[in-house]
């Protein structure tokens, strides 16, 4: 039975298509394992009963032309799912059941996949350790009391722990790539405008992007080609030519020029991260590609810029959670009192912190000094990448400045927590695609990831580079099943 959950998405699809496995077999296997995973706290809501029904129905009338035929899949609880509770990890949406489906999940079900349940995440995707969720922190399957990263921590743990073959997360400043790196899996943040934001609970609209998380690059490519689509329901969705990413995947990257940005060598970065990066450069060379030293001079401004832009947008995006229309409502003496109580009780500390930062930087008298300036710096950061891409095809960096840390280690130090995103945030600010692939382990045996950043809409290229490197790296995730019931 557990052999099934060890299989990659690509293998499962093949097995179902050539009838070695039924959707029911596969679905049952992942449900069984998920049911034993309580300690990880990955699920906020499970839909196992109905998933099994759907699997049986699929087996009665299978359609093998679909890309995800009868494949069970759990998704981050930031995606609105019709008739299934969607909480965004918050008390304020604890009772919220959408009547509609996000475009990205709709695309997945249209290709034959079956919803297993909704995965835990940081509240409104604000966090780097999955400790801000109203539904409790998620454990990493790698080790006891280890954070899986965030905000897509439930998604990362679920893939690494083989509770779902693949999943989708969202990435505003690193929320796919950082947890992927912490749990030894592959995570892609697509170009802004590639995946529709329709039906995704918004955090920071100009940065949010959904993306796939998987055990390997090929699975990641397949899921990406399913979820990426032009959507007229999202004004920022872009109508560009989309590839058959999994079919066109190749490990031939000979002659590619890969940039190595010197500004990513930050003060206090552990030696093992530097070593990993050097190893990565060697792998690139081994694949027949060339590395070129480049400069992204405004990199050091990325994190402060992000922590102005993202909270500003969030403070406005979260204004709708006011207790009036849906979600949690606290009793109040009058309207203002109801607002204050609802939002004080309904939002957690990190969300409140970011709403306050955002409100502050947008307020009159401070707008020019903070928000407007941040927008200008954002442009400079994007220009840095544009300049670099005149010389190189992609950029290689570490995914994170450290490996996963222990639960509670950074909860009282938000700045140190924010530093987790130092390598991922510039990519969101520039709207570019970035992929994190597992590339090694630190001294404690925890996974470490490398990030490949591409040109806009050039996902195929970074998937190819990741695919070629993956072969050379030959990473094996050390999952001990310490958590299995």
């Amino acid at each position, binding site marked *: 039975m557990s052999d099934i959950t060890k299989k990659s998405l690509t293998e499962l699809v093949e097995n179902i298509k050539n009838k070695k496995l039924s959707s029911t077999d596969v679905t049952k296997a992942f449900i069984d394992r998920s049911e034993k995973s309580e300690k990880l706290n990955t699920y906020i809501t499970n839909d196992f009963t109905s998933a099994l029904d759907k699997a049986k129905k699929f087996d009665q009338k299978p359609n093998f032309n679909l890309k995800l035929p009868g494949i069970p899949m759990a998704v981050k609880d930031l995606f609105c799912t019709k008739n299934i509770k969607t909480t965004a990890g918050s008390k304020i949406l604890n009772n919220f059941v*959408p009547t509609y489906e*996000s475009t990205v999940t709709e695309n997945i079900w249209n290709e034959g996949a079956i919803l297993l349940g909704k995965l835990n995440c940081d509240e409104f995707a604000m966090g780097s350790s999955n400790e801000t969720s109203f539904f409790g922190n998620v454990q990493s399957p790698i080790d006891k009391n280890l954070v899986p990263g965030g905000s897509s921590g439930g998604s990362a743990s679920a893939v690494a722990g083989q509770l779902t073959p693949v999943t989708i997360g969202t990435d505003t400043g690193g929320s796919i790539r950082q947890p992927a790196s912490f749990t030894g899996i592959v995570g892609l943040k697509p170009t802004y405008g590639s995946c529709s934001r*329709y*039906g995704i609970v918004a955090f920071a609209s100009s940065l949010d992007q959904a993306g796939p998380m998987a055990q390997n690059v090929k699975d990641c490519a397949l899921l990406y080609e399913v979820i990426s689509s032009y959507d*007229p329901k999202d004004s920022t969705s872009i109508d560009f030519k989309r590839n058959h990413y999994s079919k066109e995947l190749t490990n031939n990257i000979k002659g590619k020029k890969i940039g190595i940005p010197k500004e990513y060598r930050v003060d206090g970065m552990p030696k093992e991260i530097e070593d990993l990066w050097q190893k990565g450069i060697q792998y690139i060379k081994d694949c027949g590609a060339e590395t070129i030293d480049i400069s992204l001079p405004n990199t050091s401004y990325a994190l402060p810029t992000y922590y102005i832009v993202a909270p*500003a947008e969030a403070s406005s995006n979260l*204004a709708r959670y006011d207790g009036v229309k849906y979600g949690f409502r606290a009793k109040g003496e009058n309207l203002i009192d109801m*607002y204050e109580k609802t939002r004080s009780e309904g939002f957690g500390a990190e969300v409140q912190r970011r709403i306050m930062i955002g409100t502050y930087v947008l307020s009159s008298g401070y707008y020019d000094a903070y928000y407007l300036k941040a927008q200008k710096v954002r442009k400079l950061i994007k220009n840095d990448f544009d300049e670099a891409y005149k010389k190189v095809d992609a950029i290689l960096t570490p995914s994170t400045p450290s490996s996963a840390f222990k639960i509670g280690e950074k909860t009282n130090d938000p700045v140190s927590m924010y530093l987790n995103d130092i390598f991922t945030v510039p990519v969101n600010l520039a709207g570019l695609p970035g992929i994190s692939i597992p590339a090694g382990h630190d001294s404690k045996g925890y996974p470490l990831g490398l990030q490949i950043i591409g040109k806009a809409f050039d996902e195929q290229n970074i998937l190819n580079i990741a695919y070629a490197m993956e072969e050379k790296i030959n990473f094996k995730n050390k999952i001990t099943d310490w958590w299995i019931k």
Partner: protein
Amino acid sequence: MSKKDSEYLINRKDNQYEVVIGLEVHAQVLSESKLFSTSATKFGAEPNTQVSLVDAAFPGMLPIINEFCVKQAIKTGIGLNAKINKRSVFDRKNYFYADLPQGYQISQFKDPIVGEGKVILDMPYGQKEVGIERLHLEQDAGKSIHDLDPQNTFVDLNRSGVALMEIVSKPDLRSPDEVNAYIKKLRSIMRYLGTCDGNMQEGSLRADVNVSVRPKGSKEFGTRCEIKNVNSIKFMQMAIEYEANRQVDLIEEGKTIDQETRLFDTKKNETRSMRSKEDAHDYRYFPDPDLLPLEVSEKFIEELKNDIPELPDDKKKRFIEEFKLSPYEANILVSDIDTAKYFEEVVAKMGKNKDIKLAVNWITGELFAFLNSKGLEISQSPVSAKNFAILINLIKNGTISGKIAKTVFELMIDGDKDPQKIVEEKGLKQQSDPKALEALIDKIINDNREKAIEYKQGKEKLFGFFVGQAMKASGGKANPQLTNEILKKKL
């Protein structure tokens, strides 16, 4: 153009004060669907029946701009002789209120779709130009209903997300009368364009009124107060009058005016403070990241320009030139698009030998009087332009007299009857046969020999008596002109 301003001044002892007024008009875009969603916009629908997930701000819902509303705004901008901005930006105006589901209103702050323009007002003292500062698109909020339940407030989101054009004037208005003329002119232009129905009762047109006062002759502006959300011209005029006097009184008492937002209490006929400048909302405007900047091409604007009908100012000019109307008559006919349409149709149906002056008199006289008495719009007139034209022609060619025509008009009202038929059926045709009239008049003179002699002896007043007798004998149908001629000859 005469630049003479109104003589509206507020007098106190030795001082005279001028009133300075600027208007922010909120005009509902005439559109079947909302600014960022496909929900309907019908007035008077059951509460919360025209609300989409976007309008109610459900998680993950995104706004999509309604191209038609953009076109309507640009057309209005063209009608206001304004600069159309090829690039404009939607911003979020953030504040909390129960009937504002998103917690922000999508509006345009720094970069509106329409820039500076102007409108011309026809005032008794000449034409007056009023500058337009800008026009921008924004969403309306929902409606809070406080009086249905003693404990709770109800919210109706039907209006949430409906497209509004905010038209901001320069502080060029100087009297309640100019405000009246300005609102009517804006409404007239938008109704010509079909971009706003201008219905103030249904809230399609409302305004925030900025009022300040200054000593006559002063170049500097006084401190202004904004009177929020006034929804009739009458109330605007009353509010301005009250507010200007209040401000003058403060100055006369040596006090200062606080810049604040005020409300007009229509029952007490006074304005009162709503919030001071210090308490003003910080709306934290910033560009809406869910929407890209709105970019329109030169071609897009040109195509809309080609789509603009003849507007009131041009129509007025043409009426004066083509139909030899006085500016006053032309004004009355063009101010409302339906009146202008009716008039032009009457002119067209009257054919070759037409008397336009007569038609104008009849439209502004009999027809308007009747419509007013019934509270009808000209578009609801029971008499069609076609039959109205026939009636005018019957007067013109002498078939009926003006007096008989009034009787015919009254009969036409019921079922838009053909006046020609009415005249025939009721035998109302004017007696214009000289022989028959002569016979009739001979008889009258015979019957009133003594009076005829008196007349000949110089009692000229008696002429009217004979005319009256002729009319009486003919049942009012005797051609008055001919009767006069024959009487003069015979007497």
